[in-house]
C-alpha cells in the first residue's frame, strides 16, 4: 500500500511540473521581483526534495544492502 501511495505521489509531482496555469503571466511578483512561474518551479524543487525524503524513508531498498553485507563476510572468510 505504501509503495502504491509513493508511486501516486511521484506521478502527481511529475504532472505538477506541467504548470500550464502560470504559463502566460509573470504576476504576482513574489518578494517584488521573482516572477510567479519561476517561484513555482523553485518550490517544485523543494517539493522534489521532500518526495525523495519520503522515498528514502519508506521505500529504501535495504535488501540490496543486506545482500552485499552477507556476501562480504563470506568473501573475507574465503580469503
Amino acid at each position, binding site marked *: 500500500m505504501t509503495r502504491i501511495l509513493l508511486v501516486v505521489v511521484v506521478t502527481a509531482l511529475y504532472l505538477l511540473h506541467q504548470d500550464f496555469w502560470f504559463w502566460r503571466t509573470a504576476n504576482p511578483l513574489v518578494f517584488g521581483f521573482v516572477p510567479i512561474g519561476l517561484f513555482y*518551479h523553485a518550490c517544485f524543487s523543494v517539493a522534489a526534495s521532500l518526495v525523495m525524503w519520503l522515498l528514502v524513508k519508506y521505500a529504501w531498498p535495504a535488501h540490496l544492502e543486506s545482500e552485499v553485507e552477507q556476501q562480504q563476510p563470506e568473501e573475507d572468510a574465503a580469503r
Partner: protein
Amino acid sequence: LIPAIVVFIYLAIVLYIGIFAFRRAGGREKAEDYFLANRSLGPFVFLFSLFGTNMTAFAILGSSGHAFTNGIVTYGLMASSSGLVIPLTIFLIGTRVWALGKKYGFMTPVQMFRDRWECGHIGTCIFVVQATLLVPYIIIGIMGGGTTLNAVSGGRVPYWFGGAIVALVVMGYVFFGGMRGTAWVNTFQTVLFLLFGAVAVVVIGVAMGGFANAVKAMQASPALAPLLTRERISPLYFFSYTFIPLSAIAFPHILIFCLTARKMAQFKKTVIFYPLCILAIWLPCVFLGVVANRVTDVPQIRAKQEARRVLATQGKTMTPEARDELREQSSGDDVLLRLLERYAPLWLAGLLGAGIMAAVMASDSQILALSTMFTEDVFAYYGGTSRFGEAVQVQTGRIFVVILTLLAYAVALRAPETIFELAIQYAFSGFAALSPLLVAALFWKGSTKWGALAVTVWTVVAVVAVAVFQSMVPAPAPGPPTLIYSLGGYEIVTRTPGGTAVLGFMPVVPMVIVASLLMIIVSLVTSKPRAATLQKYFP
C-alpha cells in the same frame, strides 16, 4: 588581472588536491583504487562530487545564456525537471548498480551488461557508442576553460594558452589522483560555487539598483516582458524536456561514480539533497541570465540584444548562414561573465571566475570514465590485464588520460565551438535513448542481448538522422516552425528555430519510446540468458 590571479591560485589548489590524493593512495597500483577510489567515498564527498560531476560548463554558463535568450522557462525546462528525474533514477538505478558492483566487482556499465546478457561484442558496441557520445564533452570542457580564462583576464591570457593550462591541470589531477583526486576536486568545486553563487546574486542585484526595478522595467517593455513568462515555449516542448534528464544515469561517468560509495546509505543524502543543490546553483544563474536583458551599460550585452532584434525583425528575409551568424552573436553564454566583469568587485569576480572554472572543468570525470571504460571494457576484456598484470592496466589508464587530453586540446584549438555544442545536445538525447538498457537489465528478467543491441543501433541511427536532418534543413527565423512532413493533416516533422519537432515533441521523446519498444519486442522473440545468470540478478 586580479581575477586571473585568483583563478590561477585556484588551479594550483586543485592540482595539489589531485597529487595529495595520489599520496593518500600510498602507491597502490590497484585498478579498483585508481578508477573507483577503492569504493570508499563517504556521504559528503559522494553527494558533492556526484553533483559537481553533473554541473558542467553547459549547466552554469549555458543556463544563464539560455535564460538570457528564452527567459525564466530555462529553470523549468532544465533544472526543476532534473531535480525530480535525476535523484529518482539514482534512487532506483544507482543503488542497484552499486550493489551489483559490490557483489560482482563491476567497474563499468558495459561489464554489467556483458554479464547480465551473456554477451561480448554487443558490450563492445555499447562501449563504442557511449565513448563516442562522451568525447564532445571533453573537448567543450577545454574550450570552455580557454574562453573563461580569456574573459576573466580581460583578454590577457590568450585562448590557446588558457585551454592548455586547463587541459594540463585536469590531466594532472586525473593522472595522479584517479577517482579519489577527481572526487575531492569536484567536492571542492561544488562547495565553492554553492558558497559564492548566492553572494554573486546579491552583489550584482545591489549594483544594478535592485532586482525589483529591473524586473518591473522588463515587464513594461513589450520585447522583454515575454521573458518573464513562458508564452514563447509550447507546452509539448516543455513536456519533452522532462525526458532529457534520463540521460544523466545513462552517462558512464555518473554510473561509474555510483560504484564509488562506501555504503549504500551514502545514496540517501545524495537523493534527498540533489534537488536543493540544483535549486541553489541554477536559480541564481537563470535569474541573472534573465535580468541581464535590462543591462544597458555593457556594450557586449547590448550587441547581443541588437543581434537578437535584427534576427526577429529581418530574419525571414536573410540567408540561413546570415541567420546562423546572428544567432551566434546573440548567444548569451558569456552574460554571466560580463555581469561579473561589470558589477562584481575584483576579488569576487576572481572567486566566481574560479567557480565558473570549476564547472567548466567538470570534464575531469568524463576523461577518467573513458579511461576506466577503455582499460576495463577493452584492455582487460581482451586479455591485457591477465597477460601484463593490474599495475600495467593502471599505467595504461594513465597513458590513456594523457593521450585523450592532448587529442581533445588539439581538436579544441582547430574546430569551431558550435559544432561541439550541437554534438552535446545530440548526446543528451542519445544517452536518454540508452537509458532503457539499464531499466531492462535491472528490472526485467525477459530482456536479452539482442534487445540491447537493437536499442544501441537505434540510438546511433536516431542521433545521426537528427544531426543530418538539422544540417541539411536550415533553422527558420524566430516564429512558427517550417513544416517538413505531414500526414492526414497532422504535422509529423517540423524544423524549429531551436531544433526539430516530431508531432510537436523534441526528438528525445520518440527516441526513448522507440528504444523502449525495441527492447521489449526484440527481447520477446529472442532467447534469454541462462537460469543461473538470471538467478544472480533476480534472486
